[in-house]
């Protein structure tokens, strides 16, 4: 170190500017860790291929028919699974003391979370587009056309936003990233499988059908199918958005409280 002139603080940046910096950080992470994209899309690609060709014929008569049913479902599953990663990332950041630096800065205290959300949006978008492309190659045809697909992706991002809060809270509360993952998947797996993502619930026992009918994941999947194939109702969209809205309203303030108390 040679010389260090005194440097005064420039005018305080806005909350939005702070949030954008964290968004930029999320984008840089993609640049430096392209392998995380691999983790992100490998699971859904495998699910798509295996379910379509192994179970498709048995479940829907033919792989082609099953693909039509399954693609909207696997998109929901992917977004929910991907949200877990941001909880793990948060837990990692907190463990390293990086957040201590952020918290000791005179910035909008929630801006690091806004950055997390930007990263999530990008992850959801990239993974979603890759799955859609593979689906289209295999023969998936969204009957509602481009507008329907765009609407479906908007809904997907809203789902990701709402569900994301669960894992942000877990990431804040749990010290080890691995535990965040294990715990998250221990309740996500039952929720995802006991839904209408993979199979039509008609053949399930009555008690399970009752669960599937109220499972928020089912509502999300139903609305997404409707958006892609056309014929979605306003009620379906509202039901699909109910859980994300409730989660945001309850967990966003909780996030602030936990974060400030840490």
């Amino acid at each position, binding site marked *: 170190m040679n010389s260090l002139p005194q*440097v005064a603080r420039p*005018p305080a940046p806005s909350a939005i500017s702070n949030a954008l*910096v964290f968004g930029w950080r999320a984008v840089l992470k993609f640049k430096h860790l392209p392998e995380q994209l691999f983790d992100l899309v490998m699971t859904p690609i495998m699910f798509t291929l295996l379910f379509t060709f192994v179970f498709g014929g048995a479940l829907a008569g033919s792989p082609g028919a099953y693909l039509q049913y399954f693609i909207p479902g696997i998109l929901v599953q992917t977004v929910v699974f991907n949200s877990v990663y941001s909880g793990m990332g948060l837990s990692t950041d907190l463990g390293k*003391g990086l957040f201590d630096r952020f*918290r000791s800065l005179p910035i909008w205290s929630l801006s690091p979370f806004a950055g997390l959300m930007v990263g999530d949006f990008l992850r959801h978008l990239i993974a979603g587009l890759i799955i859609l492309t593979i689906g289209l190659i295999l023969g998936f045809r969204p009957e509602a056309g481009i507008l329907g697909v765009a609407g479906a992706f908007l809904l997907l991002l809203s789902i990701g936003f709402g569900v994301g809060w669960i894992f942000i809270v877990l990431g804040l509360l749990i010290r080890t990233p691995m535990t965040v993952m294990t715990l998250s998947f221990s309740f996500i797996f039952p929720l995802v499988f006991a839904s209408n993502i993979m199979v039509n619930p008609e053949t399930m026992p009555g008690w399970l059908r009752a669960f599937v009918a109220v499972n928020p994941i089912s509502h999300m999947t139903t609305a997404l199918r409707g958006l892609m194939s056309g014929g979605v109702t306003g009620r379906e969209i509202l039901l699909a958005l109910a859980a994300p809205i409730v989660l945001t309203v309850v967990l966003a303030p909780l996030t602030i409280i936990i974060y400030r108390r840490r």
Partner: protein
Amino acid sequence: MNHGHSQNGAAPAIDARGLVKCFGELRAVDGIDLAVPRGMIFAILGPNGAGKTTLMRMLATLARPDGGSASVMGHDLVAEPQKVRSVIAMTGQFASLDEDLTGRENLVMLARLWGFRGRAARARADELLGAFELADAAAKQVKDYSGGMRRRLDIAASLIVTPGVLFLDEPTTGLDPVGRKSVWRMIRQLAGSGVTVLLTTQYMDEADQLAARIAVIDHGKKIAEGTSRELKVATGSGVLHVAVADPARLDEAAQLLEARLGTTVQRSAEGGALAIAAKTSHDATDALNKLLDAGIEVADFSMGSPSLDEVFFSLTGAGRK
């Protein structure tokens, strides 16, 4: 001192009264007072688990005090945390950097968070990278940095805007001697430019080398405070080293010294040299005279003040290791 007045130019850098932080039953910080004048390097010395880090985290607004009050550069810790944050910077014990990003990206990110825009943020990052001899590693991801480089970047990250108070939590833990010396040099230079530095350390020589004042902390309480010299004087003893010309008379010399000073002689591994605690230099001179009276030739002698280690152990009680 003026806790309430936010624009008090005369306020000390840190003024803490009876700070308390509890974790369940444990009183990690148990009523600590601290007054640090501006521009000083102040060390908090204590063993692991003494409450050093918790105390520092409270002062850096990262943990809310359960009792007491404190102001930093005249801003109240609890009432005006955002104002405190605008005049401090903290380098934690664990690298507070994004390991996946490059060194430059880390600094640009922080510069932007402080309010530098585009080109100005990049210029500030490059300036700091140059000053901390990291220009060559600017484009490398931090995970590929050595321990010393990481520390340097971590400290650079705290200087985007020159802070009023810089908190350094164990700044040289885990560094090799070269890295340590270079961090010490930086800390001195910063203090020279007017930055108040509050550092925690468990190394006595670090506090001794750097700090104008030292607070010794144990079990969440401050057990002593003063300059390095004051702490040594308070312990009340120095060590007399004596080398005897004729090794055959070593035992005799040891007995004479013990008889006069009432403490136990320690022999050096090579033999020939003796070390013994003496309360005052008068006692030490007198003991040397006893050797001369007995006709024992002294080849060499010196009177050393106690090391901070000795001070620390005498304050916290022996037996702890």
